[in-house]
């Protein structure tokens, strides 16, 4: 084991030891369960937990909601972002409302979402789409505006129309920024779904599982759920990074 790996392991190991020590000291599984109980939950992810489904089932539900919300957000934000990046008047027109809505946290929309879209998939997807929308929009816009003028002019000189420019220059050139926006947007969407599931109206998903387990004092399930959430978040982020490395790394060159 080389030095770098050792360094990376130091802090996690320290945390684990601290956790175990504290759990023994506190001696109350309703406050801090020991590591073994959390691991037991994690190592049987397909087992039903007190009637509310297994870790895997609930994770899939959450992923499905995020996937849908993210898709909706991307399908709206990318075209709008490209248009706003390309045509200044459009950007001027939308700038005001984008700046006004952006700082509002998606969760603040929950009451309105429940009122307008009723309890169900639509309202949750709405919240998640809101979360993912703004990073994707802004990064897309940035990416399009940052396309080098020379590239556009070089292709224009060949007699390209707007459509050719869009497909051959602008979209490929902005792709790395757009992808970064999507990566950030997905991260936010993932955070939103878990929190959104803690509110009334849902009976599945990791957020729901965590709250349900908490209500029975099953803190080890709560912690296992949190670890699962973090784990899934990391995997998906890695996916975004690997695609960027493979296809979009011409950026800094």
């Amino acid at each position: 084991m080389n030095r770098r790996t050792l360094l990376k392991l130091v802090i996690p190991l320290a945390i684990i030891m601290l956790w175990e020590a504290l759990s023994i000291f506190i001696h109350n599984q309703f406050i801090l369960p020991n590591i073994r109980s959390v691991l037991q939950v994690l190592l049987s992810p397909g087992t039903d937990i007190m009637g509310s489904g297994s870790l895997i089932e609930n994770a899939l539900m959450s992923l499905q909601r995020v996937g849908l919300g993210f898709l909706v957000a991307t399908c709206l934000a990318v075209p709008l972002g490209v248009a706003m990046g390309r045509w200044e008047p459009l950007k001027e027109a939308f700038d005001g409302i984008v700046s006004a809505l952006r700082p509002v946290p998606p969760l603040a929309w929950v009451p309105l979402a429940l009122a307008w879209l009723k309890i169900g998939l639509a309202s949750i997807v709405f919240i998640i789409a809101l979360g993912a929308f703004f990073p994707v929009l802004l990064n897309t816009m940035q990416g399009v505006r940052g396309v080098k003028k020379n590239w556009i002019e070089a292709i224009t000189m060949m007699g390209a129309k707007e459509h050719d420019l869009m497909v051959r220059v602008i979209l490929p050139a902005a792709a790395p920024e757009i992808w970064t926006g999507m990566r950030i947007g997905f991260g936010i969407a993932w955070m939103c779904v878990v929190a959104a599931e803690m509110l009334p109206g849902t009976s599945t998903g990791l957020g729901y599982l965590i709250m349900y387990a908490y209500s029975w004092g099953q803190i080890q399930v709560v912690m296992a759920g949190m670890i699962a959430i973090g784990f899934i978040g990391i995997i998906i982020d890695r996916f975004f990074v690997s695609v960027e490395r493979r296809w979009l790394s011409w950026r800094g060159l």
Partner: protein
Amino acid sequence: MERSVTMMLQLQNVSKEFGSGKSRVRTLQDINFEVNDGEIVAILGPSGCGKTTLLRIIAGLEKPSSGDVLLDGEKVEQPGPQLGMVFQEHALLPWLSVHRNVSVGLEMRGIPQEETRGRVMQYLSMVGLSDSAERFPHELSGGMRQRVAVARALTLEPKLLLMDEPFSALDFQTRRQIQQDILQVQERTGKAILMVTHSIEEAIYLADRLVLLSSRPGMVREVLKIDLDRPRDRASPLFLKSLNYVLNCLNASVAPESRKIGGTGAN
């Protein structure tokens, strides 16, 4: 021996203004000159005299405030494949291979793959880069990239090749080399070239005629014919004399007229 001269590009009283009202700036004023078939013409002038703006107007990337640009008798109002352009900074698309970069124009016109391949390789070998077809711009040196840019510009077989300070970003050695290559390409293809440059020496080495611009506003101060035989010797007394002459021209304020350097005979 005089070749028969056919006029291809003609500028008629081209002027350009920027801004409006109080902050109106006249960048170019009454520019008139021609480029003939098969000629190399260089535009020279002090910084800020508007030479790049002029080239962009000719390319169709910008519109003149008044006056016309005529290519074979027809007005140039927007960019098109009859004009090829090489930019100062490579402007190659970094996500495409050298081959794809060169073939972009042909692809857009729907030319079938077989023919495209043939033409791309033809022009790449003309600039000496046929083994680099599958490499990417970031893997190439500055000089190689500019060569690719030239190949790309030539592939659509434009009537006139425009170059905007194409070699200023290159180091001394590479620059010399590529100047040679340009002359070779020009000889093989017989293309007319209009280039903007900072370097008097480069202009005299390459061009058949020089257009000298004054600045603020940019006006044609003088049009000079360079009648030296190719290959030109940079160390020859005639070359140096021409260099000095142009230098003085650019510094002094002389009434615009047409002059000839080297040899005898009227223009």
